């Protein structure tokens, strides 16, 4: 009668596992305690049925085990018993459904006083928009999205004061209801913060919504919960629930659409002056110098250079004790007087003529080609870099530098800092390179890609990084 024992042990074991399991709901940080309550009610009801049916099953298997001297009872049906069981089940189901629907009623109706935040999803990161002082969002359409207008803003007076947050980090005030308006620039995504319980898909071409009231101060992780391609698992962000004043201060420090549009073009001449400090290591033409571990800079896009310089300045890169050369770079980045200087010097470097780099490592480029398929999703099939995915150009960069950075990402030395979300992403992605050989192979393949703008343009007419 092994079966009897197994059914009993599995039934009670399952219940015990449920009770003792260390894998539980994350600590609740929103008003949706009602969702948890409904879930717990469901657990009780289904748990009771689970135990009752299975223990009865075990009893039946034991009591009516085979006996050659006995015959089965002949009873085609019992209307009374069946009616009772149907009735009881229906009552149980109704008892589960009714509270569920009541909670759903409040889920679909955001409170009048909720403030609104637009969440924009894109392969594979998040950005946010606040309506600004007028409390109204300006019109947007995916058709208008370009590298310079990443939100697809249409010329709309209501949009001039919209606050644009182009980073996956979001702040929310505690205890104030918030309605998330969700849209996507490309494929489907899903804005999920486990601690908030509520979540919803985001689609291109329409706006979906849900609402919560954050109830607990703290930092929570945003993950994408709808398969959105190769880097789905690396599409992360953070939401920090803060006091109202902190939130207002943060919000005020974010640029509005009008401010961004009115921004002065960078001053390359000023940039050239600042670049004087870089020449010693990176060279006058930004050609780099392997002897002092300085990578080539020419050919890199201004937005990437600017971001990295800012990371160095903020201590988000070059602060890890194992990142020797990053530590060397940091003081130079902090020497730049202000953000404008960073923009200027980045703009200057971006215009430098490209120089050839030498191959210093050996790897199996054919094997690397297969590995590079994953990288191509963000960095482009020619390694040209894609601003929309925040992925810098790889082709033409020195191989020793690429290999070292991949190694640093793999060990979490680079990219782990919370202010470096795209570095974070790189840590996740680089896990597919399981050893040093894989790194050398993929770098060897990158070295076969067109190394300068001219060859790139020839290899990829019309495409590339404009």
């Amino acid at each position: 009668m092994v079966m009897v024992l197994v059914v009993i042990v599995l039934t009670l074991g399952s219940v015990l596992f449920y009770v003792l399991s260390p894998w539980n709901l994350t600590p609740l940080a929103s008003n949706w305690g009602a969702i948890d309550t409904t879930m717990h009610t469901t657990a009780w009801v289904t748990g009771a049925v689970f135990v009752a049916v299975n223990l009865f099953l075990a009893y039946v298997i034991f009591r009516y085990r085979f006996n050659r001297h006995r015959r089965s009872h002949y009873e085609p049906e019992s209307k009374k018993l069946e009616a009772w069981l149907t009735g009881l089940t229906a009552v149980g189901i109704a008892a589960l459904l009714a509270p569920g629907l009541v909670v759903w009623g409040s889920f679909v109706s955001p409170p009048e006083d909720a403030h609104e935040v637009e969440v924009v999803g894109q392969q594979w990161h998040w950005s946010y928009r606040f309506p600004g002082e007028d409390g109204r969002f300006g019109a947007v359409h995916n058709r208008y999205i370009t590298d310079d207008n990443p939100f697809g803003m249409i010329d709309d007076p209501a949009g001039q004061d919209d606050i644009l947050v182009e980073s996956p980090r979001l702040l929310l005030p505690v205890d104030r209801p918030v309605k998330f308006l969700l849209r996507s620039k490309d494929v489907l995504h899903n804005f999920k913060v486990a601690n908030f319980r509520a979540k919803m898909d985001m689609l291109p071409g329409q706006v979906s919504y849900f609402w919560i009231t954050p109830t607990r101060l703290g930092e929570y992780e945003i993950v994408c919960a709808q398969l959105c391609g190769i880097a789905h698992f690396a599409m992360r962000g953070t939401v920090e629930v803060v006091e109202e004043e902190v939130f207002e201060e943060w919000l005020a420090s974010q640029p509005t659409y009008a401010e961004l549009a009115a921004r002065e073009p960078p001053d390359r001449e000023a940039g050239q002056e600042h670049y004087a400090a870089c020449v010693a290591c990176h060279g006058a033409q930004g050609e780099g110098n392997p002897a002092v571990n300085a990578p080539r800079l020419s050919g890199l896009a201004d937005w990437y250079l600017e971001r990295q310089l800012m990371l160095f300045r903020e201590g988000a890169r070059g602060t890890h004790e194992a990142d020797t050369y990053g530590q060397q770079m940091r003081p130079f980045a902090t020497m730049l007087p202000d953000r404008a200087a960073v923009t200027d010097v980045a703009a200057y470097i971006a215009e430098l003529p490209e120089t050839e780099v030498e191959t210093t490592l050996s790897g199996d480029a054919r094997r690397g080609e297969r590995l590079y398929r994953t990288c191509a999703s963000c960095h482009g099939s020619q390694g040209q870099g894609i601003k929309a995915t925040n992925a810098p150009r790889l082709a033409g960069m020195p191989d020793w530098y690429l290999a070292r950075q991949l190694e640093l990402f793999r060990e979490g030395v680079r990219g782990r800092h919370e202010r470096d979300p795209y570095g974070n992403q790189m840590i996740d992605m680089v896990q597919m390179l399981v050893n040093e050989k894989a790194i050398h192979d993929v770098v060897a393949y990158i070295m076969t890609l067109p190394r300068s703008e001219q060859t790139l343009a020839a290899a990829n007419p019309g495409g590339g990084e404009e």
Partner: protein
Amino acid sequence: MAEPGRESVSYAPAGEFDDMELSHPKTFLGKYIWSQDAKVIAIQYGITAMAIGVVALVLSILMRLQLGFPGTFALIDPGSYLQYVTMHGMIMVVYLLTALFLGGFGNYLIPLMCGARDMAFPYLNMLSYWFYLVAVLILVASFFVPGGASGAGWTLYPPQAISPGTPGIDGGILLMFISLMVFIAGFTMGGLNYIVTVLQARARGMTLMRMPLTIWGIFMATVMALLAFPALLVAVLMMLFDMLLGTSFFMPAMLTLGEQSGHEGGSPLLYQHLFWFFGHPEVYIVALPAFGIVSDILATHARKNIFGYRMMVWAIIIIAVLSFVVWAHHMFVSGMNPYFGFLFATTTLIIAVPTAIKVYNWVLTLWRGNIRMTVPMLFAIGFIFTFVNGGLSGLYLGNVTVDVPLADTYFVVGHFHMVMAVAPVLVVFGAIYHWYPKMTGRMLNDTLGKIHFWITFLGSYAIFYPMHFLGFAGVPRRYYAYGETGYIAESAQALNAFMSVAAIIVALTQLLFFFNLVWSYYRGRESGPNPWQATTLEWQTEHTPPRHGNFGETLPVVYRWAYDFSVPGAKQDYLPQNMPPEAVEYEDGGRGGGSAASPDEVRP
């Protein structure tokens, strides 16, 4: 209990049927390859489905290796992981389970259990298999085209299914579309056949309410499939147009890796509605045949009539109808108008009532029975336990509020594997152990069968039960790796490793099953025509395995329902469906007269 004497089995008088001009194939090719015999076609379907199923099983092991031991296998990159996810799901649901239950068991059992010589349209039936085989080959080919197979997830949601950033957007997805269309065309030929055969070719006396539940399950599943697959067909076709012709059915204005895609005005949600209008009934297309088969296994091996036969039939019909109005419960967090949630949560929970009734009736069939712990019975009980678990977790996901935090987590993965993967597969195994003797004339080895059962049953539970808890903890599905996700406890990795080891063990155990299939074909104990002392017509054939034409000279006539086990007073503990009342021997020495009640006959 003595075997029933041949004389007690009735046949329609010769001459009433002048259908004996069946042309029997003479050549090897005609008999086994281009065969129009439903039984051979069934086995062709079965072998093909199991072969492609093994591919999907291997893919699942690759996934488990990555999840259990991330960063270890150079072979598995994020793209190929998604390809495994996609192909595993699509193969298991459509190319294995649907094909095996309907094409495999449907073909074998419908003519035999209904008392027909063959399917209504044998040629079409053959064509159906060849379409299926071509569909499978096209699907397999998609692994080998540049870029590899699609990695869009088995739901193939646009825009990602045909947009850069997803693996296999060139050849892979194209071949997937073509393969699905060929499959659906092939299935339509087979499906029409099954329906016409059940409705038109039943033996005399085989009223609908005397049909074994196996046939009811397969029949209703086929009706559903014929209504549901067209939705998938048009969805796939429209996406193909979006991809190749530049239409915008499902594609709104959007970017593809930073560039404008050129599409305008389409709706990704429209695809999801079409897909799940197919996808939800698909769950029951797999489940209903399993429900039917398990009912017959339970009754036969517990020597007891199925409890509440009429209720069981109506439950199948009600489930089939309701399953067409619950589809959007897959879309509670899809961004559709959330007010739909009220309607679809309600219909979804209503469908739990007939489903629960089926579970009660299975257990009540065992109640006061005389349970023979045969291998098919083990699998049937394993099914009940697994299905109860998977059914109850469905109440979490169907209740829209509770679904919100659990959607797209491992809770969903655990749930649907319990309810529509492990449960039906346990029935498939049980059914093979049950009907193998009829197909080959030999019994499968009992000891190997028991080992196979215990490892498969306990192992699957060890894989999928803990998954629900990862879902509670909010672990998202379809993730290549979790890295250092703040809210996911590190111990989750240990749990993942445990599940992976269990999965590898379960997968390897299937080798034992395949070995048993081959070994027993040559060395198995001879079974005789009716080793389980079952009542249904396939066990009463003149030859075992049945020859072309199934029933020899004359077709059987049916006098009773399929569940006359342990009829009070009757000497023999089972009365075959084709045993006339006057042939029944009674313990008081009488013969004939008092009839065994079937639900038809007890009706006033």
